[in-house]
């Protein structure tokens, strides 16, 4: 029998090294496929089985997955942009311009970061509309909807904090206006504005605070919430397919895996 790519892979998956990394074993039995998902730290958030219907494009339009894809692109390009960006008043604008005109591939990374950010906000809204109009937010998925709303807010705060970092006129006045909108909150508004900006106006402290929020605090919050959001899909009975979720006897499916 001539060697095939599939045969090569099957040989690799039988080696001692492969078996030391992936403990689920080889073979295409249902058990091995289930173990491959269940015993992987990343994949185990998802179910080992899902309805064929939930994989169809029409079920979700893949909006949640596409949102995750933009988040991963933003994390990757954002980390690279951080290597050339100093969050200080004399340097921030010049560093942004250097990324555009001096750094190799800098303009590509900056534009990819910017367009992915726009795409992520759009996709989050599209995802929420899709979930809403299909009624997929209803019990038993109501808490995952709440996590989704918090993730929407995190996405918008990421967008807002990132807006200041180029430190140009548009950034300065957008954050000035946004911070003044915040100060309209009853009683606490002016104090919240002062704490967010770290001063009475948009200046060096505000730039640094927004940088830390944008690059550390908000992405960490997003990662934790995304993990819970995905895990809850499995715990709440899998992706919503729009079909009656009853067992063979006609009683509602119990979701308490």
């Amino acid at each position, binding site marked *: 029998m001539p060697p095939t790519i599939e045969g090569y892979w099957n040989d690799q998956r039988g080696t001692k090294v492969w078996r030391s990394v992936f403990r689920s074993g080889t073979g295409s039995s249902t058990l091995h496929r289930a173990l491959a998902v269940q015993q992987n730290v990343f994949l185990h958030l998802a179910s080992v089985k899902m309805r064929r219907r939930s994989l169809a494009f029409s079920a979700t339009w893949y909006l949640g997955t596409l949102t995750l894809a933009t988040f991963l692109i933003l994390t990757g390009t954002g980390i690279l942009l951080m290597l050339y960006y100093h969050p200080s008043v004399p340097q921030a604008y010049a560093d942004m311009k250097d990324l555009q005109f001096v750094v190799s591939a800098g303009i590509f990374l900056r534009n990819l970061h910017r367009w992915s950010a726009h795409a992520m906000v759009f996709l989050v809204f599209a995802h929420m509309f899709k979930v809403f109009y299909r009624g997929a937010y209803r019990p038993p998925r109501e808490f995952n909807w709440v996590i989704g709303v918090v993730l929407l807010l995190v996405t918008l705060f990421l967008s807002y904090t990132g807006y200041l970092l180029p430190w140009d006129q548009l950034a300065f*006045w957008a954050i*000035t*206006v946004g*911070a*003044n*909108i915040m100060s309209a909150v009853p009683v606490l508004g002016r104090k919240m504005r*002062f*704490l967010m900006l*770290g*001063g*009475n*106006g948009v*200046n*060096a*402290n505000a730039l640094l605070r927004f940088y830390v929020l944008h690059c550390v605090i908000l992405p960490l919050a997003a990662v934790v919430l995304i993990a819970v959001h995905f895990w809850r899909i499995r715990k709440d009975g899998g992706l919503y397919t729009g079909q009656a979720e009853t067992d063979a006897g006609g009683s509602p499916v119990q979701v308490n895996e």
Partner: protein
Amino acid sequence: MEPKDTGEVTRRDTLIKIGLGSVAVAGCGAAAFGYQFLSPNVLYEPSPIANVGKPDRFPLDSVTPDLVAGIYVIHAPEGFYALTATCTHLGCLTAWKPDLGIIACPCHGSKFNRHGVKIDGPAPKPLAWLKVWVSDDGDLLVDRSSIVPAEQFVRV
């Protein structure tokens, strides 16, 4: 097996209460500490007091913007006064339009006359009048953090 409810306070109950109480005290302390940490004690911001120079710089019936300080210095027949250039709507920097004789905000279209009174737009309040006085050297000083009632002119 559940312990019998005899109405007695057990050692475990007491320790749980002490533990939860300690956590609550530590939580309040951490919140207070966190608030104080996030609130800067020293600000390296420009002084609110701006020196705009000698009064004879400003001809009679003139409005002079100082974009760095964010104020207008106005020499009216009744005397000198200063207005903040920060729009009372959402804090944008307004601009003096000499041909129209008005102060206009580029962000959301508020318009004010040279006394700071709103003519048009979403601004909820007139532009604030700022404290103006003459220094010992004869310079006009404006305190941007100190708002005075309107129509308070300074005669030099």
